[in-house]
C-alpha cells in the first residue's frame, strides 16, 4: 500500500513536470510583485544517488517570492521546518537581499498547493540550494522595485536602494514604502540564477544569530503541530497492527467495537483500524476488535549480523573506490590491522510521533502531516487512492522533528483511509510503540576493514567493505596509495531508511576507530597520526580547532579517565570531535566533548551551534546505548522505558567551535556534526581501559566484563599495555 522507502535517501524524480501557469499564481496572490526564480536545472543531485531521468522539462521554477501591495513579503518553498531552524535561516536570506526587516517576511513552507515542487528536506541541501535560491529571488525583487521607482521618479536606478523596507533615492530625498510602488497592475519578474548577491563578508542580516522566528508560538504552546489540528466533525483514528511483521488477517470480529457510539471500524485487506470521537475512545474500541492473525516473520536480532553478511550482494557502484593495488600492499605489509565493526538498527524517536489529519471533500483529499517530503507523500497518497495528483494537497505544519525518519507517508495514508471509511476528517497520531515498531530504522551494518602500515608508520593499504549500512561517508579522507572501498547491499530483516547523517556515522566509526587502533599500536599520538595522513586543509582546520579547544595536548592521565578524537567530512561539512570519558566500574560517562564544525560561510551562528550541540547529544545515544532489539518477528524494546535515549544526566559539557569560512559557499549542517561523536567515545574508552569496542552501541549494558571484552575484540592487535603519552 505504501511506497516503500528504499535503503538510502531515495527519491525519484516525478515522471513528468509540467510548465506552470503564471496566471494561476497571480490569481491566487492578487496584485503586487511576483518573482519567479527560474533555473535550467536544479543544482547537482539532491542526495546519494544520481538522478538519471532525462525527461525533465528544461525549465523549473524553484522558488518564488511575492510582495503584496501592503508591503508584506511572502516566500514560498517546498522545504520544511523540523527543528533545524530553516524557517529562520531562509527568512534571513530573504531579508539580506531584499533589505527589509525580518518581521515583514513570512514563509509558506511545504504546502503542495502553494509552493514549487521540491524533492524534500534531507541531505543537508536546504542551505546550499534553497537559501541561495531565495536570496536570488529576493535580489531580483529588489532590482524590480528599484527599477519601478526609477520609472516613477524619472531618475536612474543606480541611485536607488531599498533600506530597511523603504525604497529610497537619496539624491532627490524621495522614498516610498514597498507597497506604494506596487499599486497598480501586478508586476512579474522572472530571474535566472545569474543575479549578483551580497558576499558573505558584507552580510548584515545573514550571518547573524537571529533568534528563531515564531519562537514565541512554541514557548506558549500556540504553535499547531499536526496532532493539534482540529477539523469540524473530526474523529480520532487508531490502526490495529499485527503482532509480528508480515502477519495477515485470518478473521475479524468487530461487532463489540462497532456497538460503541461514534465508532467506525475500517478494514481494507490487511489494513484494519478504528475511528472514534476521542483518542482514548479509539484505543478502547481497537481493544474490542477481535482479530486473528496468521503468518508473519521470525526476524531476530541475535542472528542479525550473520544474516547481513550471508545475504550480502556483490559490491555495486555506490561508494565504490579503487586505487592502486590493495592486495599486493596488504600482502607485503610490515604490519596488518584487520577488524570487523558493527552497527545496530536504531530508531529516530522524533518526540512528535508520525501523525496526520486527513479530510476528504468529495474526491479531493487534504492531508496535514509531519513529513520531510510533502510532494513525495502527495505522490504516495495519489497512488494509494488512485487519485490524480491535483486532487491531493499535503500541508506540513512545522513539525516535531524528523532526523531523516519522516520521509514516508504511512500515517498520511492510514489517516486518509480511515477518514474515507468513517466519512469524517480523521486525526491519526502514532503511539510511541508504533513509532518504535512500524517506522523504518537506521540501517544496521557490518563493516570489515583491512589495513597495512609500512615500517615508517605510513598506511599503505586500506580495504573497507560496508555491508548494508550504506555508502555515505565511505570514502577515506586520508591519503593512502592503495585502496579498495566498497558498499554491499544486503537483505535487511527490518524496514530501514534515512537517518541523520545516514551511514556516515557507521563509516566514520569504523574508519576512525581503526585509525586510532593503528596509532596506538604504533605508539603515535592519534592526532599526529591523522595529521600525517591528511592533505585536506579543511579537515585539518577543524582538527586543530577541536583539539585546541579541548586542550588535547594537556590531557592528563588519571585513573578511569580516557580521551579520544575523530574527524571527517560529509555533505560539504567538516567535523572534528574530542571526547573525555570517565569509567567507574562498568559505568561509562562522557564528561566533556569539544566539537569543531566548518560548513563554509555561516548563515546563523547560534542556529548552527544549536545543530552541532544537538547532533553531539543525539549521537551519544547511538554511540552508547541505543539499539532496536527484535525477536520472533517483533520489536522487543518498543517503549521509552526499554529503548534508552539520551537524557539530561547523560549530557557532557560541550564546547562547540564554529569555523567560519566566508570565502566558501555555505553547506548544510543538520547531519554531519553527528558523525564524530561515536568514534571519539570509542577511542576514549580504549584510552581509559585498553578495551577496544567495535560495535555500536558501545556500552548498552555498561563496559563489557573482562572475559567478554576479550571476545569483543576481534582485531589482530592485542590490547595495548599501559600507554604513555607520546
Amino acid at each position: 500500500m505504501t511506497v516503500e522507502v528504499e535503503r538510502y535517501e531515495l527519491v525519484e524524480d516525478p515522471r513528468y513536470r509540467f510548465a506552470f501557469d503564471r496566471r494561476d499564481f497571480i490569481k491566487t496572490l492578487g496584485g503586487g510583485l511576483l518573482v519567479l526564480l527560474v533555473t535550467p536545472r536544479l543544482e547537482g543531485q539532491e542526495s546519494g544517488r544520481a538522478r538519471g531521468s532525462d525527461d525533465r522539462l528544461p525549465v523549473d521554477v524553484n522558488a518564488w517570492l511575492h510582495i503584496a501591495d501592503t508591503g508584506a513579503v511572502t516566500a514560498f518553498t517546498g522545504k520544511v521546518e523540523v527543528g533545524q531552524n530553516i524557517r529562520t535561516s531562509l527568512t534571513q536570506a530573504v531579508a539580506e537581499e531584499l533589505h527589509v526587516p525580518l518581521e515583514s517576511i513570512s514563509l509558506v513552507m511545504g504546502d503542495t498547493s502553494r509552493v514549487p515542487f521540491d524533492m524534500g528536506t534531507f541531505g543537508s541541501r536546504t542551505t546550499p540550494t534553497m537559501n541561495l535560491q531565495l536570496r536570488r529571488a529576493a535580489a531580483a525583487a529588489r532590482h524590480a522595485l528599484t527599477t519601478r521607482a526609477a520609472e516613477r521618479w524619472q531618475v536612474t536606478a543606480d541611485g536607488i536602494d531599498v533600506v530597511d523596507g523603504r525604497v529610497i533615492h537619496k539624491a532627490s530625498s524621495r522614498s516610498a514604502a514597498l507597497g506604494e510602488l506596487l499599486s497598480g497592475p501586478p508586476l512579474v519578474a522572472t530571474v535566472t540564477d545569474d543575479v549578483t548577491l551580497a558576499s558573505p563578508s558584507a552580510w548584515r542580516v545573514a550571518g547573524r544569530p537571529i533568534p528563531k522566528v515564531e519562537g514565541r508560538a512554541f514557548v506558549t504552546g500556540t504553535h499547531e503541530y499536526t496532532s493539534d489540528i482540529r477539523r469540524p466533525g473530526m474523529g480520532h483514528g487508531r490502526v490495529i497492527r499485527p503482532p509480528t511483521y508480515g502477519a495477515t488477517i485470518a478473521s475479524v470480529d468487530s461487532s463489540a467495537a462497532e456497538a460503541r457510539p461514534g465508532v467506525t471500524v475500517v478494514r481494507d485487506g490487511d489494513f484494519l483500524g478504528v475511528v472514534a470521537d476521542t483518542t482514548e475512545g479509539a484505543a478502547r474500541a481497537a481493544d474490542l476488535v477481535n482479530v486473528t492473525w496468521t503468518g508473519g516473520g521470525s526476524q531476530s536480532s541475535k542472528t542479525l549480523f550473520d544474516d547481513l553478511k550471508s545475504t550480502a550482494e556483490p559490491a555495486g557502484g555506490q561508494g565504490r573506490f579503487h586505487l592502486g593495488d590493495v592486495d599486493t600492499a596488504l600482502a607485503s605489509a610490515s604490519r596488518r590491522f584487520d577488524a570487523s565493526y558493527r552497527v545496530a538498527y536504531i530508531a529516530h524517536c522524533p518526540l512528535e510521533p508520525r501523525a496526520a489529519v486527513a479530510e476528504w471533500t468529495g474526491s479531493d483529499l487534504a492531508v496535514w502531516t509531519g513529513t520531510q517530503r510533502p510532494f513525495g507523500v502527495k505522490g504516495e497518497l495519489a497512488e494509494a487512492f488512485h487519485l490524480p495528483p491535483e486532487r491531493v494537497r499535503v500541508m506540513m505544519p512545522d513539525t516535531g522533528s524528523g532526523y531523516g525518519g519522516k520521509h514516508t507517508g504511512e500515517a498520511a495514508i492510514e489517516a486518509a483511509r480511515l477518514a474515507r471509511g468513517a466519512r469524517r476528517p480523521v486525526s491519526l497520531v502514532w503511539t510511541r510503540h508504533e513509532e518504535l515498531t512500524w517506522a523504518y530504522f537506521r540501517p544496521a551494518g557490518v563493516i570489515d576493514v583491512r589495513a597495512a602500515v609500512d615500517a615508517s608508520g605510513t598506511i599503505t593499504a586500506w580495504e573497507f567493505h560496508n555491508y548494508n549500512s550504506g555508502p555515505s561517508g565511505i570514502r577515506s579522507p586520508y591519503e593512502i596509495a592503495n585502496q579498495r572501498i566498497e558498499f554491499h547491499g544486503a537483505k535487511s530483516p527490518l524496514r530501514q531508511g534515512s537517518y541523520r547523517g545516514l551511514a556516515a556515522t557507521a563509516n566514520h566509526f569504523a574508519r576512525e576507530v581503526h585509525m586510532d587502533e593503528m596509532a596506538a599500536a604504533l605508539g603515535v599520538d592519534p592526532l599526529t597520526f591523522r595529521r600525517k595522513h591528511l592533505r585536506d586543509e579543511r579537515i585539518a582546520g577543524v582538527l586543530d580547532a577541536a583539539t585546541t579547544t579541548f586542550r588535547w595536548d594537556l590531557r592528563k592521565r588519571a585513573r578511569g579517565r580516557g580521551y579520544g578524537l575523530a574527524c571527517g567530512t560529509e555533505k560539504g561539512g567538516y567535523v572534528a570531535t574530542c571526547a573525555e570519558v570517565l569509567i567507574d566500574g562498568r559505568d561509562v560517562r562522557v564528561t566533556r566533548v569539544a566539537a569543531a564544525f566548518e560548513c563554509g560561510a555561516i548563515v546563523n551562528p547560534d542556529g548552527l551551534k544549536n545543530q552541532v550541540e544537538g547532533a553531539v547529544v543525539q549521537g551519544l545515544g547511538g554511540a552508547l546505548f541505543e539499539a532496536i532489539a527484535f525477536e520472533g518477528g517483533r520489536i522487543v524494546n518498543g517503549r521509552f522505558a526499554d529503548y534508552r535515549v539520551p537524557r539530561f544526566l547523560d549530557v557532557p559539557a560541550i564546547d562547540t567551535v564554529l569555523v567560519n569560512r566566508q570565502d566558501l559557499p555555505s553547506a548544510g549542517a543538520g547531519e554531519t556534526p553527528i558523525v564524530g561523536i561515536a568514534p571519539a567515545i570509542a577511542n576514549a574508552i580504549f584510552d581509559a581501559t585498553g578495551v577496544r569496542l567495535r560495535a555500536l552501541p558501545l556500552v548498552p549494558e555498561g563496559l563489557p566484563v573482562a572475559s567478554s571484552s576479550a571476545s569483543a575484540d576481534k582485531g589482530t592487535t592485542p590490547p595495548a599495555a599501559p600507554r604513555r603519552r607520546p
Partner: protein
Amino acid sequence: MTEVTQVERVDQVERVGQAGRACCALAPQARRRGYSGFMPAVVLTVNGTPRTVEVEPDTKLLWVLREALNLTGAKYGCGEGQCGACTVLVDGQAVRSCTTRASLIANRRIETIEGLAGKTLHPVQQAFLDQEALQCGYCTTGMVMAAVGLLRATPSPTDAEIAKALNHNLCRCGTYLRILAAVRQASLSARSGR
C-alpha cells in the same frame, strides 16, 4: 442512548463552569450513560477556571485537556510517563498528564502552558527564547512546565538539581545544555525581580 459530540460536551462544560458549580467534584445531573455505564462529570480547575468534563474512570488528564478542553499545549509523546512532553502542574507540582487520571484530581489546581503567560511571557518562557533552548519545540511546553514546577519548589537550583528534576523530560533534538542555561536565567531573573 444519546450520543454527545465533543463540541456539545465542551459547550456544556463552559455553561456548567460559568454557573459556578466549581466546588462539586461530581455533577450528578450531568451524568449520563456512557460506554461503561456512567460517564461521570468531573470538575477540573484549569488555569483558574472550573471546567466540567465527562470522563470515563480511567480517562487521562492529557486527553481531557487536548480533546475536551482544546488545550493542546500539553503534547502526547509516549503515553507512558517517560518523556515529559505532556507535563502540566497539579497543585504546583509537575505531573505527567498522560498517566494521570482526570477523575482523581477533581478540585485540584491544574496549570497548563496556556495559563502561564500574562501580558508578558513567564520568565521561564522568556528564558527559553533568550537561550534559544529549543529546536523543533515539541518538548518545549512540557519542559517549561517542569521548569516552572522546579523553580517554585527550589527557586535557586544548582545545575545538578536542574538536570535531576528535568531528567524525565526528553529533548530528542538535544538542546539540554540550553535548557539548563534557560532555567538558570529564569531563576536569576526571578530573584532579581525582573
